[in-house]
C-alpha cells in the first residue's frame, strides 16, 4: 500500500496529493501524511513545485473539512431526532454540544494536525452539533496550515530519507492519538466513578 501510493505520487504528483488530502478529511483511510512527506521530498529533489504541493495539500484538506462539516450539518438533524428518542442518547448529544461550545475552536484546530487521525470525526461532530461555521472554518484553516506546513516541510527537509521520517512520524502520531484517547477515557472513568460515589453517599 505504501509503495503503491508513493509510486502514484511520482507518476501523478500534485493532483493526486489534492485528492488524497481531500478524501482523508472525510475519514477515508488514505495515507495523506505519507503522501505529503513524499511530495515535500519530491519538491526538494526538484520533481515537483513546492508552492503547488503546499497549495494542493491545503486546498484539498480545507475543502474536505468543510464538506464533512456541511454533510453532518445537513443530514445531522435526522440523526439528532433519533438520538433524542432515548434519554441516554439525548444526554450524550447535549454533552457533546456543551463540549463543542466550550472547547470547539481548539478541538477543531488540534484535530487538524496534532491528532490528525481524529480530525474527520471532529468535523462531523462540529456539523452535527451545529457549531458556528465561521469559527469552524477559521480554526480549521489555521490547523491545516500547521498540518500541511509540518508534513510537507519535514518531507522537504528530510528528503534524503522519506522512508525513515514517515515511519518515525507515524509512530509519533500513533502515540499522540493513543495518549489523547487514554487521557479522555481516564477523565471519563474518574467522572463516572465519582458520580456513583456521590449517588451512594446520598442514599
Amino acid at each position, binding site marked *: 500500500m505504501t*509503495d503503491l501510493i*508513493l*509510486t502514484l*505520487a*511520482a*507518476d501523478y*504528483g500534485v493532483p493526486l496529493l489534492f485528492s488524497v488530502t481531500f478524501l482523508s478529511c472525510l475519514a477515508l483511510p488514505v495515507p495523506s501524511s505519507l503522501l505529503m512527506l*513524499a511530495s515535500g*521530498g*519530491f519538491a*526538494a*529533489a*526538484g*520533481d*515537483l513545485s513546492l508552492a503547488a504541493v503546499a497549495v494542493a495539500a491545503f486546498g484539498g484538506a480545507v475543502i474536505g473539512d468543510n464538506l464533512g462539516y456541511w454533510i453532518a450539518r445537513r443530514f445531522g438533524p435526522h440523526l439528532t431526532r433519533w438520538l433524542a428518542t432515548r434519554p441516554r442518547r439525548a444526554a450524550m448529544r447535549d454533552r457533546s454540544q456543551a463540549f463543542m461550545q466550550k472547547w470547539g475552536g481548539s478541538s477543531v484546530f488540534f484535530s487538524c494536525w496534532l491528532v490528525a487521525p481524529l480530525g474527520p470525526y471532529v468535523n462531523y461532530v462540529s456539523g452535527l452539533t451545529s457549531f458556528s461555521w465561521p469559527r469552524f472554518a477559521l480554526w480549521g484553516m489555521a490547523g491545516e496550515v500547521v498540518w500541511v506546513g509540518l508534513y510537507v516541510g519535514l518531507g522537504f527537509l528530510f*528528503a*534524503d*530519507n*522519506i*522512508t*525513515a521520517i514517515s*515511519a*518515525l512520524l507515524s*509512530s*509519533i502520531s*500513533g*502515540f499522540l492519538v*493513543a*495518549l489523547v*484517547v*487514554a487521557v479522555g*477515557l*481516564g477523565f*471519563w*472513568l474518574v467522572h*463516572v*466513578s465519582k458520580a*456513583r*460515589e456521590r449517588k451512594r453517599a446520598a442514599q
Partner: protein
Amino acid sequence: MWHRLIDLWTHNRYLLIAFVVAICLSVFFSARAISQFVYWADPARQDQTLAGWMTPRYVGKSYDIPPEIIQEAFDLQQDGNPRRISLDKLSEEKGISLNDMQSQLDVTVARWRAEQGMLNE
C-alpha cells in the same frame, strides 16, 4: 484507588478495558518511535535501497550525488528534458530490473565518491 478500580471493573468494564488498551498502545508507539529513531540515526543507513516509487532526481537527493552521476548510473539521455518518472516505469521502459539498477548505481556512486575523495586530498 483499589476500591475505585474494582467499582469501575464491576460497572464500566468496557470503558476500563478501552482505557488500558489506549495506555498499552501509547507505550507501544513511543517505544517504536524511539527504536526507529535509533535505527535511522545510524549514518550507515542513509543511502536508501532503491524502490519503485523513487524518481531519478529523488535518488540523487537521497545519495547526495549530482545529476550527471544519476544520468550515468541509469543510462538516461544527457540532453533530453529531465522527467519525473518512477523507477518502476523506468525499469519497464529500459527492460532492466530494479536489482540491476541498484548494482549499476552502487558501482557508479562508489567510483564517484572515490574520485571526490581523491580530489579533496
